């Protein structure tokens, strides 16, 4: 199972942010880098992190904040509750 830290690092890397710069409520549109293309980068990077297990999750594209992404990953048993 991947850790929450790995997920956050992945999102930060996808958005080309400095480590530690995301808060739990950082969301699409709240920072410049997380626009519609940034969102695609996040989805793509998460799919790489989880070895292709993200693509089948239909509602993950609707998760538009760090909190929401983590909630969906927990729902799908991809990270610890």
């Amino acid at each position, binding site marked *: 199972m991947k850790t929450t830290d790995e997920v956050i690092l992945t999102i930060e890397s996808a958005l080309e942010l400095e480590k530690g710069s995301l*808060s739990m*409520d950082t969301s699409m549109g709240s920072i410049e880098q997380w626009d519609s293309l940034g969102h695609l980068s996040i989805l793509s990077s998460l799919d790489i992190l989880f070895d292709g297990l993200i693509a089948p999750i239909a509602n993950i594209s609707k998760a538009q904040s760090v909190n929401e992404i983590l909630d969906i990953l927990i729902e799908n048993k991809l990270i610890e509750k």
Partner: protein
Amino acid sequence: MEKFKFNLTNTAIDLYLFDGVFKPTGTTKLLVDSVISNCNGVVNKKILDLGSGCGVVAISLNKEGLSENIFYASDLNENTVECVMYNANKNNCKVNVKKGSLFEPWYQEKFDLIIDDISGVSSEIAEISGWFDGVPCASGVGGDILTNTFLEDSVNYLNTGGLVFFPVISFSNVKSILSTAEKTFDIVECVGRSEFMLPESMHSSIDILEKLKEAGYINFQNKFGTIIWYTEIYKAYNKT
């Protein structure tokens, strides 16, 4: 000297960090955003950034048009005076920056807006966090000593109708700080909140965090297999 970009609403500013100067965090960003969104249309006012670090808050508010041509800043740290002047110059801002503890440098001055930018986390957490690398943090085990003193003194440095903004971090004694604020001001309201994950640098110190929480000095949530803490930004003022 480290260079970094700080994003504002419509632009970004370049800032430089001298050695021993506090590096802005998510709390800093939340503080700036909350002040900008909650200033009741205040522009061109006399603004004091107390505990300014590299000057990020003051310069940001100046760039957003909230402060007069000149902004006011102070910090205990030796290096920050030079750092703030350097950043102000780089960003075409005029600054009146002084070295000193809390309101010490501002005797008989009054301001329209005072921003508490001083460290407000438990000193034990400051030690293990890596946030205060070379920067002093004498906030006490509850992280409330400096913030409480700030709140109590700030009324003496406010113009009529003046506002105070201060962060409250869950890695501090939130109850103590809010109680002091409520005793000092007529109105105390939360105007911003962000949750954060425990930084990797603190993972090996979870037992220290648990002890501090048990003793009532700090608070946090166990979620997503990690620790989630928060910062809230409060706005306080007296009725006129």
